[in-house]
Structures are given as structure tokens and as C-alpha cells.
């Protein structure tokens, strides 16, 4: 009798484990970290062309949407998303701010001269620490910002669905 109870308990324990593993199998193990950064953090940063120091709270403070795009000339997917950014900046009421990630000036400038410049302002994140402040994990990465609030975050290159989503939010 006692044995039967133990047998039953152990069996249900293993069935429970089986069930958990089974569910775990069907979950993707690609994980995008959940950032708790809701507002644009405070940091000062150098601008690309003027080489002037500027504070983050003065960049995104107007009553409109901003798209902060982290890019680098050495990053291949950045090249792919670039035309979409140009398109977005030409056709919509949005200010696209670039953040040049761990790049050198010459290459970055060449990149913009070649492919066009969708950015109204470019910031320079020479050592990558500002991206960490933002909770970014690499390039490319984009943040939709409204009045210093981060509305939406896009990890990896932007695609057509993401652009559509941005357009929808803006309108």
C-alpha cells in the first residue's frame, strides 16, 4: 500500500518533468533580453560632424517621434536597412537620429556619402558605452522615442514589418 503511494507520487513527478521538458522543447532558445529602460537615460555624447558635446535629454525632448538608429560602417546588416531609413525620413514626420557605433570618422563618412544620410543628427559612440546605457546589445538596433520615452525597441536590422509598425505608431 505504502509502496503504491510512493510509486504513484514518483510517477506523477516524472510526468510533470516530462511535460515541462516537452514544453521547453517547443520554445525558442533565441532570447531577446527584456530591458527595463523606459526613458532615454541621461548621458552626454559627442556629435559626428560638429564634434560638440551634447546631453541626451536635449535631443529627444520635442513633441514628435524620434527614431534612434545605432549603426556602423563595418556592419553589413546596416547597409541593408539603410534605404528603408532614407525612405522613412523622406516620407514621414519623424526625426531619425543616428548613433555611430565603434566606428572611425573616415569610414563612417564614406558610408554616408555613398548611401545617403537619413539622419538629422548623428551622435558618436566611440567606445560603445552609450549603447549600454540605452540597453542595446549591438548594431543595428533602433529605438522609437517620443518625448524622451522609449516607445518601441527593434533589435537587429529593420525590416518591412517593423517599418510599417513605426508608420502606424506615428500616425
Amino acid at each position, binding site marked *: 500500500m505504502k*509502496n503504491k503511494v510512493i510509486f504513484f507520487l514518483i*510517477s506523477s513527478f516524472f510526468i510533470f518533468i516530462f511535460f515541462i521538458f516537452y514544453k521547453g522543447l*517547443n520554445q525558442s*532558445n533565441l532570447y531577446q533580453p527584456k530591458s527595463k529602460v523606459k526613458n532615454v537615460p541621461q548621458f552626454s555624447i559627442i556629435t559626428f560632424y560638429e564634434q560638440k558635446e551634447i546631453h541626451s535629454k536635449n535631443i529627444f525632448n520635442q513633441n514628435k517621434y524620434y527614431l534612434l538608429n545605432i549603426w556602423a560602417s563595418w556592419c553589413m546588416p546596416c547597409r541593408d536597412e539603410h534605404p528603408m531609413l532614407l525612405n522613412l525620413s523622406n516620407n514621414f514626420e519623424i526625426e531619425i537620429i543616428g548613433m555611430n557605433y565603434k566606428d572611425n570618422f573616415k569610414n563612417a563618412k564614406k558610408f554616408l556619402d555613398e548611401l545617403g544620410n537619413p539622419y538629422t543628427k548623428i551622435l558618436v559612440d566611440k567606445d560603445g558605452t552609450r549603447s549600454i546605457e540605452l540597453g542595446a546589445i549591438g548594431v543595428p538596433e533602433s529605438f522609437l522615442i517620443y518625448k524622451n520615452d522609449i516607445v518601441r525597441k527593434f533589435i537587429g536590422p529593420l525590416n518591412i514589418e517593423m517599418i510599417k509598425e513605426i508608420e502606424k505608431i506615428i500616425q
Partner: protein
Amino acid sequence: MIYSEIGYYSLVIGLTISLPIFFFSIKNFRDNKILDYKIINFSFIQLLLVLTSFLGLVLSFIYSDFSNETVFNNSHTTKPLFYKISGTWGNHEGSLLLWLLVLNLFIFFFLITSKNLWKNYRILTVLFHQLIIIGFFIFLLDSSNPFNYIFPVPKEGLGLNPILQDPALAIHPPVLYLGYVGSSIIFSSVLAATSLNYVSKIWALHIKKWVLISWVFLTLGILLGSIWAYYELGWGGFWFWDPVENISLMPWLALTTLFHCILVLEKRSTLTSWVIILSITTFTLSMCGTFLVRSGILNSVHTFANDPERGLFILTFLFILIFISLFVFFVFHKTDKKSLISFSLVSKETSILINNWFMMYFLSVVLIGTIYPIFLDVISSEKISVGPPFYHKLMIPFLVPFLIFMAIGPQLRWIKSRLRGKIYLITLFIISISASFFVVKNLSYNFLINTVLIGSALYLFFVTIRDFFSKEFKNISQNLSHFGFSLLILSILFNNLFSNEIITNLKVGERFNNEKFQIVFKNLEKSEEKNYVTFKGYFTILESGKEDNLVPELRVYNQPNIVTSEADIKTSLLNDKFITMNTVQNEEYFNIRYQVKPLMIWIWISVLLISFGGILSLFNRNRV
């Protein structure tokens, strides 16, 4: 082409051989005669067929037959022959085939070495083992066929991941599998013995060999993996508490526990239930490891196949085996009266029980730390990481009493022992603690925990050394393994405490200075090898008047296109000098990491000593 065909069909025929084995086993089980030779013959045929199949795959790799999907995915014509061969088991399909081969090999050896044992027990072991073998056959043929055909035949393969192109890693999987699969024999045998109520002294004596064999292989397999991680991953660490490493550690812990426990069964015919549970656990953990690794459910540095369908198969198979063993245990196992015997407080039995207690605790820490994140993710979709701090916090405090018991335990006798006349145990304890205090204090690491840890490890060290010279005490294999363990803990502790490290960015021609070292980046040379281009950095390290030249490399492999960083290590008995270089994005600088790691080689030596102790006791018939 032809080799793949041969391989595939011998695999199919191999599966059908299980039928006659089943038939003759069941027939033979009922009649009263000795073991039917047909069972052994058919087992041998099955072994030959799997071997043929395996050789077929090896030959496909050697001849770079890209009509075979496995070869196409994992090989390349420019790869050196040695890595073409090791590529056979460097992938999911091939490694499973190897697993099957070892399964067959072991049951065959089991059959020919167990002649003196009861016929029915042998037959039942074969039957249980056939269940595992059939499971693997079906798994191979169904969802992981190593002989899939691709048409049109590609001209070139995709190549083997360059970090796997390494001599230590080439032999690491086979050695580890011998360990894992060895536990399958223990599993089938314990199920057979339980069903027949045969868990006894004779059985313990017989199964102990198999436990030792798989334990030795598992130890060596883990060692090889660690050595590989040490120099190839370029981190300078050798154990990362990575899930995949944990998975090989868990069966090891279970096997070690089982081995100690079987000694009690052998000498005192008690603890049968515990031995049975441990044997089942060991194999379950090996299988569970295979499942976790092969299904891609874990987030680890070692990525393998990531295919939920395969994962589901292993998962189902694993749980079928678990339920079979639960069934066998609860239906057939009778707790005999001897289990009511209790042990005297001061005796070898009790100290082995204490060993079991701590080992099970360590095992539970590793197990829970490894699978808890999966559970949490499924139940509350919250992601957490469990890493070194968790394991260290939970294990290190328990290591201290563990080491002390490990020193005292072997000094005790079976049944009842006295502590009288063992004053040396206390003397040595005082000596070790003061020695350790001296070491730690002298070097301004004023941590009590380090004093206590080093002290207890030193204690084990001294006690085992004393035993080497003691006359009354002749269990050399146990002594050697315990001595090896104390050396291992000591080396790891000293290695952690006294490591030195410098991370800096340097250009060719530049130098780095601090009060202890001077690092000069003299030169960078490019040269072309068979399947990669290498950039060699020439460094000179000046340390207290001594000069060392080290040459780390950056390799750009062409197939697949991957950059690897090869460390250069100068090993001496005292310390390892370890240097790696890496590119820095968009700069002409290189990231240089230079480490001095004391007593590194002793970590490897001590693990070798531990396993050598195991080997010795295999050949020592009288005592263990």
C-alpha cells in the same frame, strides 16, 4: 556513394538482428540449460553490422563523399585526414552511430566476460540492453540518419567548425561516450538483477568492474574536454559551469557515489535499494544529458543539433526507460531484512554513507542549477541565468567537511572501528590548518574561507601521503585517487588565488609595462596553411629578469569562414603562461590577454592520478 549504401543497409539489417536475439533469449530463459550460444553469436553479428555501418561513415568522410548529407555538412576536401576521420563523430548523426557502436560493443563484452554468472541474469541483461539498442537504432534510422543522400551531388562540403579541429577534441567524444554508455550496462544489469532478486555480493563484485570502467572513461573524457576548453576557447579557464559541462559532471558524480556504495553492498550485503536507485540514476542522467544537449533546449557555448523533433524522440525514449525502471523497482524489488541493519557511528560504512550524502548534495546542486532555468522559463516565462556564483556559493562551504571525511573515512574499519591510536589524524589536522593559515596570511589574502578550504585540502593531502608509507594500509588505488583529489582541489585553489592577468591593447612594436611584467609585441607574420591563413604575433614577456617568447595566432579558416584565436601556452611545473590575441574592430590594435596561471598542469596531473587509481583497482582482484 557505395560506402554510404553499405553503411545504411548494414544498419537496417543490424536492427532486424534484434529479433532473433529476442527470440532465442526468451526461449533460452525458460529452459534450464546453460546460455544458448546463439545469443552471443547474434550479438556478435549485430556488433559487426554496426561496426560496418560506422566504418562506412568513416570511409565516406575519408573519401569526402559529398553525396552523403552528413559528410557534406561537416567536411571539406582541404581538411587534414585526421580531422576528416574525427569529423565522423563531431556531429549529431555520427556521434549517435558511435554511441550505438559502443552500446553493442559493451553488451558483447558483457556476454563473454560474465560466464560464471547465473544464466537468467545474463539473458535478462541482454534483453534490457536490447531495448536501449533498438531505441537508438530507430532514432538513427528515423530522424538522424547519417546516410542521407543529396542530389545533385555538391562539389564541396561545408567544412567542420575550426574550433573542433583539435586533437583533444577529436578523441574527447569517443572517450566520453565509453563512459556514458558504460552506464547503460549498469542500467540493464541492475534491472535484470532486480527482477530476479539477484542484487547480491556476487553481483556487486561483477558490476563493480563495469562501474569502474565507465567511471575511468568518464573522468578522462571530462579531462579532455576541460583541457580543450582551456587552450582552444582561449579564455584561460578550464571549467565554466556551462550546462553542457554540468551534464557530463552529473553522471560522474552519480557513478562515483555508486562505486562507493557498491563497496558496502559487496562487503556487508546491504544498501541494495540505494545501489539500485543510484544505478538507474546514473544512466538516466547520461540519457538526460544527451537529451538536453541534442535538443537545443539549453543555451550553451557548445551548440549541437537544434531540432525539437529529435529532442522529442530522446525525451520520450528517456521517459519510457524511466518508467520501465520504476516499474521493475517497485514490483520486483523486495526490501530484505538486512536493510534494517544499522551502522555503527565510527565505521567505514558510515563514512561511505556520508560520502554518498555529500555527493548527492553536490549532484542536486548541479542538477537543479542546470534545469531550474528551463522550468522557470516554461512555467513563468522568466529567463534567469545560473552560473558560477551559484555553484560556488552552494558547494564550496560543503567541500570543507567533505574533504575532512574523505581523509578520515578510509582510516576506519568495516563494521566497527575505534578512533584510539589515531592521534596522527589530529596532529595532521593541526599542521594543515596552521600551514594553510601561514600561506594565506603571508600573501595578504586574509579570507577565513580560504584558510579553512586550503587547510582541509592539505589535511587530505597529508593523510593520503602518510598512507602511502603506512604499513598496515594497503589500498593503493583508493589512496591514489583520494590523493589525486586533494591535489586537484589544492591546485584549483592556488590557481584561483594566485593567478595574474593583464588585458591590454597593443600595436606591432609597442610594449606594455607594469611593476611585474613587460610585454613586447615584436612582430606580426602572415602565412598560408592548408585550410586557413594564419597571423602569428611574436611576443616577448619579461618577468623578473626572465625572458619568454610566446607566439599566439589568429587563424582565418576558409571553410567555413571563421576566425579563431589560438592561444600560446608555455607550461612548466610551476605555472602556465598563457597569451591570446584578438582583433579590435576598426583599429590596428590587437587585444592582448596575458595570464600567469600557477600550478595549471597539476590540475591535469591530479585528474590523471584520480583515474589511474580507478584503473589500478580494476586490475587489483583482491582488494578495492
